[in-house]
């Protein structure tokens, strides 16, 4: 009886198990229903629990002496679009930020308009989905200031950011829910580390949504749209990386 599992057989079993696990998990990972049900459960649970226990929590703000000596860039550092390049040449004087969609009074803001509003400056940590972190100082106008001015319609559930950059012709975009949109640390940053936001970091304006990962911090913003559902935008998952790479829409973890 005890010959059923001998040492040799157990060791063979362990030796065969590892490749079996890899092959099995690769198969499961490419099955659409397994991806949508099992492998999306973590994102679903995390987003609900985070909203339950800390929907208004503030991200830590650091002291100036805690900042990264070098804040590396990531993603696109130079949009190719001719419209953007023209704005770049004229230093964004003709650039306008259109805020529309499900709002009562759509508006269009110049960079000077944004700079003229009460600003917020915060030294926060930027966490890339890859694992690195950098601490930088951001200055901008709170998104909720603009949202109060345009007045969201009751049907609005998400705020979408349309960007000037693209990957192989597919435009970058991102979206957040209204809890993050009205969060006091969610700003449209036009300044970084006491200077003007540079092109490689997303000029003229980038999003800072401090409790989520780097790919949510949309750069080169051209338009903001309030929507009831993200299903009709792009491929329907709420952002460029969410669409093309199966990255989580909720990037708080």
């Amino acid at each position, binding site marked *: 009886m005890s010959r059923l599992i001998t040492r040799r057989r157990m060791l063979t079993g362990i030796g065969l198990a590892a490749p079996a696990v890899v092959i099995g998990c*690769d198969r499961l990972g490419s099955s659409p229903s397994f991806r949508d049900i099992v492998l999306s459960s973590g994102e679903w649970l995390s987003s609900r629990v985070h909203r339950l226990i800390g929907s208004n929590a503030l991200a*830590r703000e650091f002291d100036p002496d805690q900042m990264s000596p070098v804040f590396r860039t990531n993603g696109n550092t130079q949009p190719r679009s001719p419209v953007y390049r023209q704005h770049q040449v004229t230093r964004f004087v003709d650039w306008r930020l259109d805020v529309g969609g499900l709002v009562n009074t759509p508006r269009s803001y110049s960079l000077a308009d944004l700079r003229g509003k009460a600003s917020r400056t915060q030294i926060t940590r930027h966490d890339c989905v890859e694992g*690195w972190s950098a601490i930088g100082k951001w200055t901008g106008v709170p998104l909720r200031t603009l949202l109060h001015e345009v007045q969201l319609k009751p049907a609005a559930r998400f705020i979408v950011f349309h960007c000037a950059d693209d990957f192989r012709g597919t435009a970058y975009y991102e979206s957040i829910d209204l809890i993050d949109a009205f969060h006091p640390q969610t700003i449209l940053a036009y300044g970084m580390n006491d200077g003007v936001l540079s092109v490689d970091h997303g000029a003229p304006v980038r999003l800072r949504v401090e409790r989520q*990962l780097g790919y949510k911090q949309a750069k080169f913003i051209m338009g903001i749209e309030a929507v009831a559902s993200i299903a009709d935008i792009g491929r329907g998952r709420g952002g460029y990386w969410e669409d093309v790479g199966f990255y989580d829409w909720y990037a*708080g973890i």
Partner: protein
Amino acid sequence: MPGDTTTRESLPKADDLVARHRLSTRLWHWVNAGTVLILLMSGLMIFNAHPRLYWGQFGANRDHAWLQIGVNDDKGYLRIGSKQISTDGVLGRWEDADGRSRNRAFPSWSTIPSNYDLALARRWHLSFAWLFAIGITGYSLWSLLNGHIWRDLRPRRSELSPRHIWTEIRHHARLNFPKGAAALRYNILQKASYIVVIFGLIPLMILSGLTMSPSMDATWPWLLDVFGGRQSARSVHFIVAALLVGFFVVHIVMVVLTNPFNQIRAMITGAFRVPKEKR
């Protein structure tokens, strides 16, 4: 029967088949075996996205990494502090199943998924982390309530004497394991390792994992103070994972050395045959 004063008379003898592991322990063990393997292998893939570790609040490519797996002149290497060793073929640069050279930290046979895919690895890791966390919380509470921890894992005063511990270490080193009724109890080395793993390493793993979440850092800012920053927490997560791998290796070696059929049956059905005394 526990607590019955007559149990001393009816101690199980060698070759008796006795009930060894409770259902809660058996269930948790096997759920864990699968979950931990998935967490480890998907974790290695996530590490591959940025194979550098730092201490402190921040850390990126231009900052000093205390650990790095990389490739230099087409040779894979592992660097810890200022010490660099060649790991060519295993870490940093290795051949995939089709014989092509790949410049990635951990090789495809050790990661989930096997081909580079950070998004999918995160899905595996962050979904199964919930299963793992719920499992250990439930198991710990249940084991406290049913007395398992207090009865079976609590070191007794006599076991804590240096002499006793030294004797156990000597016996283990000679692969001379407890026989008869003594094999039914955890010895002090087992107790110590289970206590360190369940109450030390696993909580550290969960907390350092939570500290990597920007949202959890906002909700529980003390996490950042406990570990001294998100990048420190990431380093701790990696180090403790390595310690846990060490525990599993020893754990499996011990099962292999002490009648694997009997041990595995005990963890599946609960029934354990008391080992015979030395002839």
